[in-house]
């Protein structure tokens, strides 16, 4: 008999239960060796029984002790369901099973500490994008295009676009001549690899995404750009040709900018753009967070800080209004790159997004080159769970409202709208991108799906989400060399390249049937929904 009390935490209180099959296990130890969370262990189990094999009760005692693999109880080593044990088991003898009746939310605030984790919102998995479908398919009215053969212009602006009347042209004989400099605009792929920092990601994971970016540009004719995230930039990349594919982010912590500025005289090309991060969809109103477990030496070097929990302030210190933001941050960053590099801004989707966009549209200096809106399904490497699950704003209606606000003023397309947060969450990023573009976005940005392509097993149903622990079993969100070295950079980049090449085809497969050879920005007539409320809110056709 062992003494167990009702308040003892046991395995059935935990979110995942390890289903271990005695008869299949050879005690090879692989599962235990692979588990980064120390959630399972070997142990001996008593198998003492009294049996009877006679024709009448003839008790015989049989005692044996057998080795087992068991889950550790308690909250210090909770199984996150990553499934590495199952993956590595040669005999299909072990797997984590979701425990619906777990009490983990009642157990993991020990010491009065709020729950932190990575991943996405785990409650609001319901998405408007999945209720919207491409319903206007050109047929007899106007011919569809052939996605296989047609030339498509799959490009979106990054940078401030001027109205025709605002262009500084004069007529000189038969020629139009520019009389003044126009704001820099890059026409890039309508999908940006977004904002995962050096630090949040392992060196290998970050480099795999950068490598995929370069490959897609150089070899696949897909001019995708990558945003650095708020953790600085690798100096060697800053000094390379490939900088032209990179959007450098600056956020409230300004991490890594010393090395970026110092690299400026050595840059052989301009970066693709600058993105000022004001907020992010996963945790609006909250700053970045890099737990100390991930602040390894190189992170300390690039960021210029000691090993500690690195918290970015929720605000850019010293910015108190949109006007000030435009003037100070946009102007400074435009100036820093000699007005050659477009500068955009990223905010979490919010009830106030339209006001922000309206203000940006009035930017008299033409220095705001894009408005990135990040919805509540965006991911993060670390946040308070209460922020992840209970703050945020859906991105779809916000993009739509911003677009329509611009339309009302005749200024749509001037400050490109980019939408993100949960793009590709239900599997098809091209469909999400297409729908958002039809609603008014110029393009989308993706993050979580990129690391999922690298091998991240986390999902929106509470699986893994341990990006904050430094124990990432896939070597993606960790700085522990033992784990980082699990990640195959080439395979990872390959998966991203493959996905993007397929994405490109899929996007065209949606453009062709509606007869658009360029991106159907704002072509909301292409969309229908069977949800009346969604139809009303987004001003698209209701169908049933």
């Amino acid at each position, binding site marked *: 008999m062992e003494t167990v009390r009702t308040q003892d935490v046991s395995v059935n209180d935990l979110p995942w239960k390890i289903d271990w099959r005695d008869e299949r296990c050879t005690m090879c130890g692989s599962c235990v060796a692979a588990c980064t969370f120390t959630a399972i262990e070997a142990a001996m189990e008593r198998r003492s029984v009294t049996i009877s094999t006679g024709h009448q009760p003839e008790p015989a005692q049989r005692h044996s002790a057998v080795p087992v693999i068991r889950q550790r109880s308690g909250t210090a080593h909770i199984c996150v369901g990553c499934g590495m044990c199952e993956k590595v088991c040669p005999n299909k003898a072990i797997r984590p099973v979701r425990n619906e009746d777990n009490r983990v939310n009642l157990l993991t605030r020990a010491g009065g500490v709020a729950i932190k984790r990575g991943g996405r919102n785990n409650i609001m998995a319901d998405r408007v994008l999945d209720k919207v479908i491409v319903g206007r398919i050109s047929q007899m009215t106007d011919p569809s295009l052939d996605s296989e053969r047609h030339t498509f212009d799959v490009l979106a602006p990054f940078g401030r676009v001027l109205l025709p009347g605002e262009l500084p042209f004069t007529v000189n004989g038969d020629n139009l001549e520019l009389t003044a400099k126009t704001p820099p605009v890059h026409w890039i792929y309508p999908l940006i690899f977004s904002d995962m920092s050096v630090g949040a990601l392992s*060196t290998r994971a970050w480099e795999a995404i950068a490598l995929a970016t370069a490959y897609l540009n150089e070899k696949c004719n897909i001019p995708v750009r990558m945003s650095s995230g708020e953790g600085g930039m690798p100096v060697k990349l800053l000094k390379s040709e490939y900088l032209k594919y990179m959007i450098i982010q600056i956020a409230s912590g300004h991490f890594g900018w010393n090395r970026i500025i110092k690299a400026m005289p050595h840059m052989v090309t301009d970066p693709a753009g600058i993105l000022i991060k004001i907020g992010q969809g996963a945790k609006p109103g909250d700053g970045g967070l890099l737990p100390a477990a991930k602040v390894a030496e190189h992170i300390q070097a690039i960021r210029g800080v000691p090993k500690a929990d690195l918290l970015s302030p929720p605000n850019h210190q010293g910015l108190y209004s949109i006007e000030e933001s435009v003037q100070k941050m946009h102007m400074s960053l435009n100036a820093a790159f000699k007005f050659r590099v477009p500068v955009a801004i990223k905010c979490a989707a919010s009830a106030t997004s339209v006001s922000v966009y309206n203000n940006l549209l009035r930017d008299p200096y033409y220095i705001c080159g894009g408005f990135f809106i990040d919805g509540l399904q965006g991911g993060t490497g670390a946040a308070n769970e209460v922020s992840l699950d209970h703050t945020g704003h859906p991105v779809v209606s916000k993009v739509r409202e911003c677009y329509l606000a611009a339309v009302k003023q005749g200024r749509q397309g001037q400050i490109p709208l980019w939408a993100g947060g949960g793009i590709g969450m239900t599997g098809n990023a091209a469909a999400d991108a297409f729908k958002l573009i039809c609603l008014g976005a110029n393009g989308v940005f993706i993050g979580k799906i990129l690391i999922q392509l690298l091998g991240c097993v986390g999902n929106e149903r509470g699986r893994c989400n341990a990006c904050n622990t430094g124990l990432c079993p896939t070597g993606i969100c960790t*700085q522990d060399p033992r784990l980082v070295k699990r990640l195959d950079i080439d395979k990872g980049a390959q998966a991203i390249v*493959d996905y993007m090449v397929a994405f490109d085809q899929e996007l065209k497969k949606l453009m062709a049937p509606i007869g658009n050879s360029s991106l159907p920005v704002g072509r909301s007539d292409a969309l229908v929904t069977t949800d009346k409320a969604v139809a009303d809110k987004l001003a698209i056709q209701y169908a049933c």
Partner: protein
Amino acid sequence: MFKISTLNGNERMSTQELLQAINAALAAGETEYEIEASGQHDIGGPLWHPEGKPLKFIITNPGQRVGSMCLEGTEIIVEGPAPADVGWLNAGGKIIVRGDGGDTAGHCAASGKIYIGGRAGTRSGSLMKHDPLYEPPELWILKNTGSFSFEFMGGGIAVVCGYDSEQFDSVLGDRSCVGMVGGKLYVRGPIQGISAKDVKIMPLCDSDIAWLAANMPQFLNEIGRADLGETLTRWEEWRKVLPLTYDERPKKLSADIRSFRLREWVQGGIFSDVCQDDYAVMGLVAKGLYRQRIPVWENARYNAPCEFNCTASIPTQQRFNLLREGKIEEAYRLVLDYTPFPGSVCGAVCPNPCMESCTRGEIDYPAQINALGAYSAGIPAPTPAANTGKKVAVIGGGPAGLTAAWQLARKGHQVTVYEADDVVGGKLEQAIPRSRLPREVLLAEINRIRDIGVAFQTGVKVDREMFAQIKAGYDAVVVATGAHVPRVFPWPGHERIVKGLDFLKAINRGERPQVGRRVVVIGCGNSGMDAAVGAYQLGAEQVVLIDVQQPAAFPKEIAHVEAMGGVLMWPVIAKEITEQGVVTATGDLIPADTVIITVGETPDLSFLPEGAPLEKGLLKPDHAYRIADGVFTAGDTIRPGRLVDAIGTGREAALAVDAYLKGETFAAEAKNKIALTRISKAYFKRLSETEIPAAGEDYQRCISCGSCRDCHMCMKSCPENAITRIVKPDGTFAYVSDDNRCIGCGICAGVCPCGVWAMHANAKPIPMYTMAGIS
């Protein structure tokens, strides 16, 4: 001959009228048609003569789809150009256009021949097919085609002669052959923008030339350009386009990221200034440096619960391990390193806190450590170390003093014990009832102390003066005078109370102190029980024991008293002692003829010089049991406690004295109890009381918590065979895990019954990142 002109002034026949007229003529058996058309569609098919005779059409100015769905036996000659869809779905007809063809010429043709004597428009030849029941369709074009030609071509033969097309970059237009999967295409002239993912361009082979050479004259004759025979048969100017076979087609993107990274990417990687990465990929299970965890054989690093709970720190698990190895003498002698009283204390009067915490007790019954102690009572003393020439005086010959003397003498010091009483033994001798501690056991163990050379000066009560003398005459002094002043509370009538210690001492001296018929004992500790038992033995009829709190005596002692008729009452607070007995705080009277008090004793330290560190009447030594230079203390003078506590501090004080004499620094050994979770109790069968072996065989039941029992389980369970057992030069063994084989799974730790193996995070650094920057 059916001859028709479709224009009559400004009147034009509709397509329907023309086709109905043709149908009527056909039904009448007509075989030859000369049609002056004006753009009417679908002339020429699908038609067949009622008697199967061949049909021939000569047409000018047709509309779209001339010869569409044309059947074999039909020949159509268009004098001049024809618009879109010449020979659409041609099913066997011969269609000759002597001028240009329009868009989608030969679209979907699956048999028959189409000859175009000029250019053909966009998407010409698209979706041509070949029905294997028939000869393949042919589409001949004298000049060139528009863009998107031969899209989705699935069969048949097309020939584009490229005549008069020098002005074009590509005789096939742009983006030709997209989706082409079958058939073949002969081309003369430049090709650009052809779908490389679908087709390959190859030189002609002999059979190609043979076929073209055989068929070219007929084509040129039919279109009336026999003059071009020589120009168009310079075969080196020709090429053929074949669709890639199913196997040749890439099913998916074959990106080569690795080559790109190694050849074109930032050399060494973009982080190579702060990160040394060889890009080698580790599996989920790794060995050596890359293991997440490493096993550590922590033999005897943690104390077994018995050892931990014993204030004398007797490592009983080691005794059982020796017994298991058959080293019986050694096992029984080992205890003497910790106590000179294994028989008297462990085996008799000790409450055995060792057994209370024994892990085995959670399975069935604790290991019989008490009885094991008794086995060591008669073991001869080991030979002491060589004489150090140092002299130590021990004041007080009780458990603490004798233990200190024993330890010091074994270390080769010359020890003299000063005892106030006539015999040494302290409370063991004076106060513990003989029924609990057989005197012969105690005497034997005292003799064993004497045997190693400890001198006893009995009947010497040390006073201040004498203390000074002793101090001057010895290298070190241990004060172990115990606590012999019984505590009595100043209740009214307290002078009536018999002091328990005095009472017990008198009994042990063989006196028979007087007790009344009714006895009340105040204080329900073990001394209280001893007093109660003594009172019964001296003739008391009823003993009531009271306490202000739950009785602290051991259950065994309480049971003994209760069996004799004793009654324990608590909480009871005494207020007054009268002739009738004890009056309680609630005013009740507990009748008594004799009242004995056993609520503890305090030390008498009046012999010590001024300045001894005191706190609440007790000595307060430093961490090395020192109360003055060269003066140490142990036992009840520090804190009145159990016998084992006195033995524990006696030994430690001796070790401190030894260190002092050698000029070393004393540090008490830190004790860390092994975590119960490390122990594998599962191995051990739960035995019934009758199955319990004798104490000497209880090594079968001892788990050996925290100390390796040399069972080989780890070695035999290791999935990687990484563990070996080595024997060291001194004869001891150890288990070691080979870093190069071990995967860090922790099965060794999981199966270890004793909790010796532990898994630690692999702290060995992997040099990967740097702050300084790598040049």
